[in-house]
C-alpha cells in the first residue's frame, strides 16, 4: 500500500482538517466530530440537507457542502457508515427550525445509523425526513433483499434537493423532489482495479490484468460478474443498456448524464467513454441535455467508472441549473 498519508488510523480526521483549511470561506468543521457544515450554518428559514457515509468517496460528501447543496456532510471511517452520534451532531448544527432532510445511500449500515440518528434528533424536537438513494441497477431489485445500492446518482439528489431547499422549499417539498430524483436516476459501474482501505493495508479484492468487475460497488464490494476487460465502446453499450432498461424514455425526454471516475481512472478515459456513450445515446434518440464528466463519487484509488442517467423534467432541470457554490460542484 502506497499512500500519501501519515497514519492509516487518522486519515479521516486529517482529511477533514485539510478540506476545511482549503475552503475556510465555505466549510466549517464541528470540533470533536467528523462533521463538516456550511460556514454559515444554520441558515435561517431554510430546510437543511444532510448526507454522508463512509469516507473514501471524496469529493463525496463534504465536497458538496455549500450554498445550493448540502448543509452538512458526516464522514464515517473509510467505507464505514458514520455513527448515529456524529450524524446527530450534524443535524443539530444545521437545523434552523425548518427541519432536516437526510440523504442516505441504501446500505444496511448507513440506513441503520441514520435512522438511529433520526430517533435522537426527533427526541430533541427536530423535524426529520429521509430519502434513500438506490440508483445502482447492477443488482436485481427484490423485496426479499436489502434492495439496490446508492452510488454516484446520489450527487444529483444532493444538487437538486439542495437547490430546492435553497429556494425556500418546505421539508415535505424538499423530500418530495429528492424522491423524484431518486426515481428518475439510474446508474451502474465497472472496475478495473481494486482499492485499499488504509487501515486494512491491502486491496479489497484481487483481479487479474485481463479481467474487469461489472456492477462493482463503490466500497470495493464484488460486482455481479467478472469478465474480460472490454473496450470503452463495449462497456458503454453494456452500461447504457442496463441503465436505460430501467427508464421509460420517450423521444421528448431529456436526460442528464454523469460519467463518474472511481478514483484512478484518468480523465482521458472518462472522455473517451463519454464519446462512446454519446454516440450510443444519439443512435437511440436519447436527448442529452447536459453532461458531467469527472470524479464525483470515488472509491479511493479504484480504477473504473460509472454511468448515471437522470431523466429530467422542467422542475428537475431548473433545480439542476440553479447556482451552487461548493468545493466540488459549481
Amino acid at each position, binding site marked *: 500500500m502506497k499512500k500519501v498519508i501519515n497514519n492509516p488510523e487518522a486519515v479521516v480526521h486529517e482529511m477533514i482538517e485539510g478540506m476545511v483549511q482549503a475552503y475556510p470561506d465555505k466549510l466549517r468543521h464541528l470540533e470533536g466530530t467528523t462533521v463538516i457544515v456550511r460556514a454559515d450554518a444554520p441558515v435561517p428559514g431554510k430546510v437543511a440537507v444532510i448526507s454522508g457515509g463512509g469516507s473514501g468517496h471524496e469529493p463525496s460528501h463534504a465536497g458538496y457542502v455549500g450554498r445550493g447543496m448540502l448543509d452538512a456532510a458526516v464522514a464515517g471511517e473509510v467505507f464505514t457508515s458514520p455513527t448515529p452520534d456524529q450524524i446527530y451532531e450534524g443535524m443539530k448544527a444545521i437545523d434552523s427550525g425548518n427541519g432536516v432532510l437526510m440523504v442516505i445511500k441504501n446500505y444496511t449500515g448507513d440506513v*441503520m445509523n441514520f435512522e438511529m440518528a433520526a430517533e435522537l434528533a426527533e427526541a430533541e424536537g427536530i423535524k426529520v425526513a429521509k430519502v434513500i438513494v438506490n440508483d445502482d441497477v447492477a443488482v436485481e431489485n427484490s423485496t426479499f433483499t436489502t434492495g439496490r445500492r446508492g452510488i454516484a446518482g446520489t450527487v444529483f439528489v444532493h444538487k437538486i434537493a439542495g437547490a430546492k431547499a435553497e429556494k425556500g422549499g418546505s421539508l415535505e417539498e424538499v423530500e418530495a423532489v429528492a424522491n423524484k430524483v431518486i426515481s428518475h436516476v439510474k446508474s451502474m459501474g465497472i472496475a478495473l482495479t481494486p482499492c485499499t*482501505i488504509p487501515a486494512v493495508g491491502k486491496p*479489497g479484492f484481487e483481479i487479474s490484468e485481463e479481467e474487469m468487475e461489472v456492477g462493482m460497488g463503490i466500497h470495493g*464490494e464484488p460486482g455481479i460478474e467478472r469478465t474480460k476487460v472490454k473496450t470503452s465502446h463495449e462497456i458503454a453499450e453494456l452500461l447504457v443498456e442496463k441503465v436505460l432498461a430501467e427508464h421509460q424514455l420517450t423521444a421528448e425526454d431529456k436526460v442528464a448524464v454523469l460519467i463518474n471516475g472511481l478514483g484512478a481512472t484518468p480523465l482521458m478515459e472518462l472522455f473517451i467513454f463519454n464519446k462512446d456513450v454519446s454516440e450510443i445515446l444519439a443512435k437511440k434518440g436519447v436527448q442529452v441535455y447536459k453532461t458531467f464528466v469527472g470524479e464525483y463519487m470515488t472509491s479511493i484509488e479504484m480504477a473504473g467508472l460509472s454511468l448515471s442517467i437522470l431523466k429530467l423534467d422542467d422542475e428537475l432541470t431548473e433545480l439542476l441549473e440553479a447556482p451552487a457554490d461548493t468545493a466540488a460542484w459549481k
Partner: protein
Amino acid sequence: MNQQNMKDWLILANERIQEQKDYLSELDRAIGDGDHGVNMARGFQEVSNKLATQEFTDIGAMLQQVAMTLIGKVGGASGPLYGTAFLKASTALKGKGECTNIDLANALNEALKGIKLRGKAEIGEKTMVDVWEPVVSKWLDNPEAGMDELIEFTHECMVETKAMEAKKGRAAYLGKRSIGTFDPGAVSSELLFSSLFTVLKGAAS
C-alpha cells in the same frame, strides 16, 4: 454472573477480536467491503478501555456503556446491530448487581429481538442472526446445557453460514457468489458467544 464476570467476558471478547481482526476483514473482503475486522477491533478496544477505567453501579449500566460505545465507535452495519443488541440486553438487566444464566439468556434474547428489529434479517439470510438466533434459543430451551456443548454448537452455527446465500447486508448484492465463505458477522458473533461461554465455564468451576 457478576460484574467481574461480565467484564472478563467483554475483555476476553475484545482480545479474541483483536487476534482475529485481519481474519474478520479478510472474510469481509470476500463478500463485503473488507472492514469488519477493523470496525469490530475499533469498537471493542474502546469497550475494553472504558471497562478498565470506569466503575458501574450494576451490570445493566455496564452493558449500556458497552452499547453506547459500540454505537459510537463501530459504524457500518455491525455497529448499530451490536449496539442495539447490548442496549436491549442492558434494559433487561437494568439495576441488577448480578444475574443468573437464565437472566442472561433472556437478556440476550431481547438483544436478538433488537438485532432483528433493526436489521430486519431472518434466519438463513447469512448474517449474525444465524449465530444469535439458534444459540440463544438453544440456551433458553436448555439453561443447564454444558458450556463446551454451547461453544461447539455456536461454532457449528457459524460454519453453516458458509453454505448460505446472503439476503441481507452488503453480501446480498453478490447473490449466489456470496455462497462459500463464512459470514463475517457470524464469525464475530461466534467470538462473542464463545468468550461468554468460556468465562461462564470458568466462573462456574
